[in-house]
C-alpha cells in the first residue's frame, strides 16, 4: 500500500465523501481553486471535480461561515466548514456554542446539525499568540458537539469520514506540524469511529493519555523509557470529547498510574477533567496521584526558544513519568 501524508488523507476522505453524497460541500476562506485550494492545500483539486458551489470560497467572515454551515446542516446537507486557524473561533463562538451545539437539544431532537468544522492550529512554527492555541477544552465543555483530532495520517482519513457521517457537529482539529506525517494509506471508505481511543503502545507501569501531535512525543518518550525498564502505555484519545472513558479507565486500572499530556495550557484543560474522572473511578487501583502536563499558562510567545520553553517538552514527560513510578 502507498504512503499518504495527513494532508492527502484529509483530502481523500473529503473527496470520497463528496463523490458519494451530493449534500457534502466545503466552505471557508481560500478553499477553492482560485485561491490554490486553501492555505494548507487540504481542498486542493476538489473545485475542479465538484465546482465552486460545493467548494465555496468565502469572505473573511467567520460568523457567516459557521452560520451558513449550521443552516445548511439543518436543511439536511453535510457542510464541512473551515475556520482557517483555531484562534479565529473566537469570532464565531455564538454560532458554534449557542446554535450548532444546541439546536438538536433545544428542538427536542427535531433539528440535528450534521456539520464538520475543520480548523488548524499548533505551537512550534513561530505564529505567536493569536495563531497557535489549542482550544479544544472550550468545546469539550459544551454539550452537543464532538471534538476530534488525529495524530497520524491513517486516523486522519478515518476520523474525517466518521466526522462527515456523524449526525452532530464535529470540531475537527488539525495540528499544523502533523500535515506532513505519513502513514500507510488505509484505503477508500476507511473510518475510525468517533469516541474510540487507540492504545498506541501497550505498557504496564503507567498510562500516558494524550491526543494529537503530543502522541508523537509520548511514543518517543515511551520508547526511551522502555530502555530504562519503565513500561509506558500510550493512549491516543483521537476523540477528545466525548472521550472513550472505557479505554482510559481500563488502561489505568491495569497500570495503576496515569499522566495526561496536551499542548493546550494546563489549568482547566481536558487533562484536568480526565484526571478527576480517573481519581473518582480508579481510586482503589491507583498507586499515586494522577499527574498532568500541559502548555505554560501564558500566551504562546513568538521567539523560537521561548516557544520551545512554553510547550510541554519530552524531558518534562520523562520527569513526570519517573516521579510517578518512583524513579529518579
Amino acid at each position: 500500500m502507498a504512503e499518504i501524508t495527513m494532508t492527502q488523507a484529509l483530502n481523500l476522505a473529503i473527496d470520497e465523501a463528496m463523490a458519494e453524497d451530493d449534500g457534502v460541500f466545503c466552505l471557508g476562506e481560500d478553499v477553492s481553486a482560485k485561491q490554490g485550494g486553501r492555505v494548507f492545500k487540504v481542498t486542493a483539486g476538489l473545485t475542479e471535480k465538484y465546482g465552486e458551489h460545493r467548494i465555496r470560497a468565502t469572505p473573511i467572515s467567520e460568523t457567516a461561515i459557521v452560520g451558513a454551515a449550521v443552516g445548511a446542516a439543518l436543511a439536511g446537507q453535510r457542510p464541512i466548514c473551515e475556520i482557517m486557524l483555531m484562534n479565529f473561533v473566537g469570532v464565531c463562538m455564538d454560532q458554534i456554542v449557542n446554535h450548532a451545539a444546541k439546536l438538536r437539544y433545544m428542538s427536542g431532537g427535531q433539528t440535528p446539525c450534521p456539520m464538520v468544522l475543520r480548523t488548524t492550529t499548533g505551537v512550534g512554527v513561530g505564529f505567536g499568540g493569536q495563531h497557535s492555541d489549542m482550544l479544544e477544552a472550550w468545546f469539550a465543555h459544551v454539550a452537543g458537539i464532538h471534538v476530534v483530532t488525529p495524530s497520524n495520517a491513517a486516523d486522519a482519513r478515518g476520523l474525517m469520514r466518521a466526522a462527515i457521517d456523524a449526525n452532530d457537529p464535529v470540531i475537527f482539529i488539525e495540528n499544523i506540524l502533523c500535515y506532513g506525517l505519513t502513514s500507510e494509506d488505509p484505503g477508500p471508505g476507511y473510518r475510525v469511529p468517533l469516541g474510540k481511543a487507540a492504545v498506541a503502545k501497550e505498557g504496564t507501569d503507567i498510562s500516558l493519555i494524550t491526543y494529537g501531535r503530543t502522541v508523537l512525543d509520548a511514543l518517543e518518550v515511551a520508547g526511551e523509557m522502555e530502555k530504562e525498564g519503565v513500561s509506558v502505555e500510550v493512549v491516543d484519545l483521537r476523540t477528545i470529547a466525548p472521550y472513550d472513558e472505557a479505554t482510559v479507565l481500563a488502561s489505568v486500572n491495569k497500570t495503576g498510574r496515569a499522566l495526561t499530556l496536551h499542548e493546550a495550557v494546563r489549568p482547566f484543560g481536558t487533562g484536568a477533567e480526565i484526571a478527576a474522572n480517573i481519581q473518582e473511578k480508579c481510586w482503589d487501583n491507583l498507586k499515586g496521584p494522577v499527574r498532568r502536563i500541559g502548555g505554560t499558562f501564558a500566551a504562546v510567545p513568538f521567539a523560537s526558544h521561548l516557544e520551545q520553553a512554553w510547550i510541554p517538552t519530552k524531558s518534562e514527560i520523562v520527569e513526570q513519568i519517573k516521579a510517578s513510578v518512583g524513579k529518579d
Partner: protein
Amino acid sequence: MAEIDRDKLLDIYTRTMKVNRTDEKFRQLLMQGKVAVMYYCVRGQELVSAAAMAALDDDDYVVCTYRGQGEQTAKGIPMEKWWGECLGKETGTCKGKGGTMHITDPDTGIMVTTGVVGSGLPIANGLAMASQNNGDGKVTLVSFGDGAANIGGFHEAMNMAQLYKLPVVFLCQNNRYGEHTAYADHTDSDNIASRAAGYGMKGVTVDGNNVHEVYPAVQEAVDRARAGEGPTLVEAMCYRMMGHFFGSDFSYMPPEHLEEMQKEDPLPKLRAVMLEHQFTEEELDKIVADIDAQIDAAVEHALAADLPSTDEIYKDVLEETA
C-alpha cells in the same frame, strides 16, 4: 399602491388576527398568574409578521427571534403544539425543551428561533445555501429587529448572501427599540434598509402598518429570491407597543411616542381595508371568534398536558442520546 386580491387579503387578515389574539391571550394568562414564563409581546407588529408569512409558500423556511410569535403562529404551527411548548409541556413542538425563545417546527418551516440578537441571519444564509445547492426552490425568510442591524453577524451575512445571490429575504421589523434603547440612541442613519446598498443588495423601507405596502414588498422580495435574483433587505417600520418583554418597565418610552403608536396601530387600519373590500363586520368578527375558540381549546389542551419526563434532560444531546 399595489392592489392585493380579496383572497390574499382574507388570508393576511386571518393570520394577523391569529397573531394578535394569541398575543392577547398570552398576556391575559400572564396577568392572571396562570402561567409564568418569559414572553416577548408582539402587539403592534402583527401585520408585518402575518403579511410576510402570507408571502411565503408552506414549505419555505423561516428563521425568527425570541419575539417570533408572529412568524410562528402566522406560518401555521399547530396551536396545541405552540402553546404546549410555551407552557413547557411534553406536547410542545420541542417537548418543552426549547420554550418561548426557541420554538422549532420544521413541519411548518420554522427552522430556528434564536434567543441571540442577530444570530439568525447567518443561519438563514445556510438554509438558503442548501436550497441553492440542491435546487429545491425554497426561499428562506429571516426576521429580526432594528437592534440586530448593529451586530457583526448582520453585516457578514448580508455581504455573503449578496455575494452568492442566495434565495433569502432579510426582514427587519424596525419596531424603534433595541431592547430598552430607542432607535435614535443606537443608530444615527435614517433607516436600516439603506445599508443594503453597501453590499450591492436591494433594500426597501416600507410602512409595516399598511398592508398595501408591507405585503407587496415582501412578496416581491420572495419572488426575486425564488427566481435566483438574490436577497433583499425589507425594512418594515412598525411599533413595539409594549415593553421589551411582558411585565418589563416601559416608562422609558415617551408619551408622545405612545400616542403616535396608537395612531398608527395596524389593526384598525387593516380592518378598514377589509371593510373597503366588502368584507362585512360580521364576517370579520366571526373570523376572530373562531380564532379565539381555537386558542382557548389549545390553551386548555396545553394546561392539561403532562410535563416532560425528567429523563428528557439527557436526551437529544447527541444522536447517541436521542
